[in-house]
């Protein structure tokens, strides 16, 4: 499939690049020291950090991937939002931000250093740094490939263009520049995709006509008629829905372990909240982010559902079809753009896609340069240098981080298996993380040894479980590359889908880490006194008071409203 952009579309895209770079240039004069570069001098208002928080997560993989899942699984994909994001975001705001922000830690790994010890921080900092570089490289690769098939653009040219733009504006304005541009990107994405959803839904005949059109999509694959338009009804067993997951695995694996592990501990998003100008603003950041997040399914999942309905209704020629006859789900969003947008607004929609890609990349880069400079370079390689030196290092790390990502993108284009392998390794490391933070923040008895070996044990638990479990559709292991799907020790557990296997693996890793951390902590003596843990542990920290603020500025009040609305959305689309 090919799309042709007109001169006006290119003009719109170029204007956007000019504004993005212009914002970086305007912010240049505010970067005086390393705190300005890495933490925005803790000076940004809550509405800005809030929208940046959600935008940093709204990378191209999210936009393209969620539309693809919307087509592949239907409205069930909303679980990634209403179960797998909102509760964790509210928890972060209400319970965890006071420690991240109040401890004056400059990064999430640094919090671990203050709360536990050096080795726990090192483990987290190094795995996080490697992970961000690789994920930014992978998303770069996916995007360049997409632009190649769509517009016939040169692979390398796409990568270099986007990398240079992100590089320049971060070098100029640091984190502030990334955050401000993420907000611009947020509006671009919302205002660019909204008319697309409107036109597509109108073409499908509205919501109830869409539901009717989704019936044959479900029945032709052997599912109950409402499977694509009801989010919970078919979660009773793994064989009743296309995800191959049942409600318990979903709630435990995705809703608890993976979701809290990502939203509450991933520095990529938490960094945005840490840049807020006050404790109250820092706590409101994830809540402000949760409000658009709650409504995003309409923007990114609904288009996928419409596309698959039209695909079936139109005799299978709406989406591009692969060799084996299944539609190429990843082309959902681009197909819709090409189908409904004439030149002019096509430029807006296309720029929105480009914006989502750059915001995800900038998020990774700013998180990487901070963790590298503060948690690795300053801690282990070159302590006690001047602030100017660390600012210089941060800029260097930005350049190297982007170069490494470009290298990873190239690697991904050459060896597909290596990337899958790496993503698997990251999932091993990430799965137990939330147990460590939970115990660290709410149990003062948790020790550094407990945290470190608990994390290690949780990671090993994930590896072991992976070696014992395999999805039933994965086929036998013939060569080493087949082992990526699991079951390489012996196939003891069989899952209906890779997603179900992943959810249970996360739950196992979390539980292992949780239990091990408690046991080892009880067996080892505390290295930190109660006094040292003030501001780091719940029971030793004075409670946050927000009574003087109006209700819409109180994290607990607004958090409860957000949770209630999310529950309502679940019920409406049950």
């Amino acid at each position, binding site marked *: 499939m090919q799309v042709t952009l007109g001169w*006006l579309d290119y*003009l*719109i895209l170029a*204007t*956007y690049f000019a*504004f993005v770079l*212009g*914002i970086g240039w*305007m*912010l240049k004069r*505010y970067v005086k020291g390393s705190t300005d570069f890495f933490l925005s*001098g803790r*000076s*940004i208002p809550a509405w*800005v950090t809030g929208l940046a928080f959600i935008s940093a997560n709204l990378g191209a993989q999210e936009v393209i991937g969620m539309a693809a899942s919307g087509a592949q699984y239907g409205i069930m994909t909303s679980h990634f939002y209403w179960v797998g994001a909102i509760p964790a975001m509210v928890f972060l705001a209400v319970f965890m931000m006071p420690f991240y922000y109040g401890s004056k830690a400059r990064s999430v790994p640094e919090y671990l250093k203050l709360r536990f010890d050096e080795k726990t921080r090192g483990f987290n900092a190094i795995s996080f740094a490697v992970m961000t570089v690789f994920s930014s490289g992978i998303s770069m690769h996916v995007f360049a490939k997409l632009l190649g098939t769509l517009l016939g653009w040169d692979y390398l040219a796409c990568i270099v263009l986007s990398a240079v733009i992100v590089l320049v504006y971060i070098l100029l304005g640091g984190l*502030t520049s990334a955050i*401000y541009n993420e*907000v*611009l990107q947020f*509006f671009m994405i919302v*205002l660019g995709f909204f*008319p697309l959803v409107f*036109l597509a839904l*109108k*073409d499908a005949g509205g919501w109830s006509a869409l539901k009717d059109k989704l019936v044959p999509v479900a029945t032709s694959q052997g599912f109950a008629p409402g499977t694509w338009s009801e989010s919970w009804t078919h979660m009773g067993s793994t064989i009743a829905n296309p995800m191959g997951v049942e409600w318990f695995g979903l709630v435990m694996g995705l809703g608890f372990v993976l979701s809290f592990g990502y939203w509450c501990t991933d520095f990529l998003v938490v960094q945005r909240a840490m840049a807020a100008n006050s404790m109250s603003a820092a706590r409101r950041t994830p809540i402000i982010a949760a409000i658009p997040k709650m409504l995003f399914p309409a923007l990114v999942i609904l288009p996928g559902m419409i596309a698959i309905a039209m695909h079936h209704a139109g005799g299978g020629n709406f989406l591009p079809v692969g060799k084996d006859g299944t539609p190429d789900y990843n082309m959902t969003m681009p197909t819709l753009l090409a*189908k*409904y*947008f*004439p*030149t*002019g*607004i096509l430029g*807006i929609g296309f720029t929105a896609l480009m914006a989502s890609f750059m915001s995800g990349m900038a998020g990774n880069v700013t998180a990487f340069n901070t963790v590298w400079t503060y948690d690795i370079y300053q801690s282990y390689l070159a302590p006690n240098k001047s602030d100017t030196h660390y600012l210089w290092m941060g800029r260097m790390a930005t350049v190297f981080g982007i170069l490494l990502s470009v290298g990873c993108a190239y690697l991904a284009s050459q060896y597909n298996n290596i990337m899958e392998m790496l993503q698997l390794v990251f999932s091993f490391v990430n799965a137990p993380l939330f147990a460590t933070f939970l115990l660290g923040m709410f149990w003062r008895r948790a020790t550094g040894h407990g945290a470190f070996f608990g994390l290690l044990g949780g990671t090993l638990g994930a590896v072991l479980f992976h070696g014992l479990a395999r999805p039933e559709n994965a086929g036998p292991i013939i060569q080493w590359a087949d082992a990526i799907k699991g079951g390489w020790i012996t196939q003891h557990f069989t899952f209906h889908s890779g997603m179900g296997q992943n959810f249970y693996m996360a739950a196992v890793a979390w539980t292992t880490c949780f239990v091990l951390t408690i046991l080892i902590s009880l067996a080892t003596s505390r290295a930190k006194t109660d006094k040292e843990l003030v501001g780091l542990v719940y029971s030793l920290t004075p409670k946050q008071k927000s009574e003087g603020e109006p209700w819409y500025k109180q994290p607990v009040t607004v958090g409860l409203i957000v949770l209630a609305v999310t529950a309502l959305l679940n019920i409406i689309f049950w």
Partner: protein
Amino acid sequence: MNFDLRFPIGIMFSLYGLVLVIFGLASDKAIYERSLGININLVWGLVLLAFGVWMFWLARAAAKNQSGRK
């Protein structure tokens, strides 16, 4: 920080809105066949323009308020 993000957001979306409205008025109706006969450039251009102007107006009001307090 003395830099209101709403200024660039307002200017950018006003520009986009203006360009789309002008293009929407001038363009051949035939290109709107794919957008179900709706002149989406004109319609959405107006929305973007309204959003841009509103953002700009908010930033202006905040700036005036601040200098008034000084």
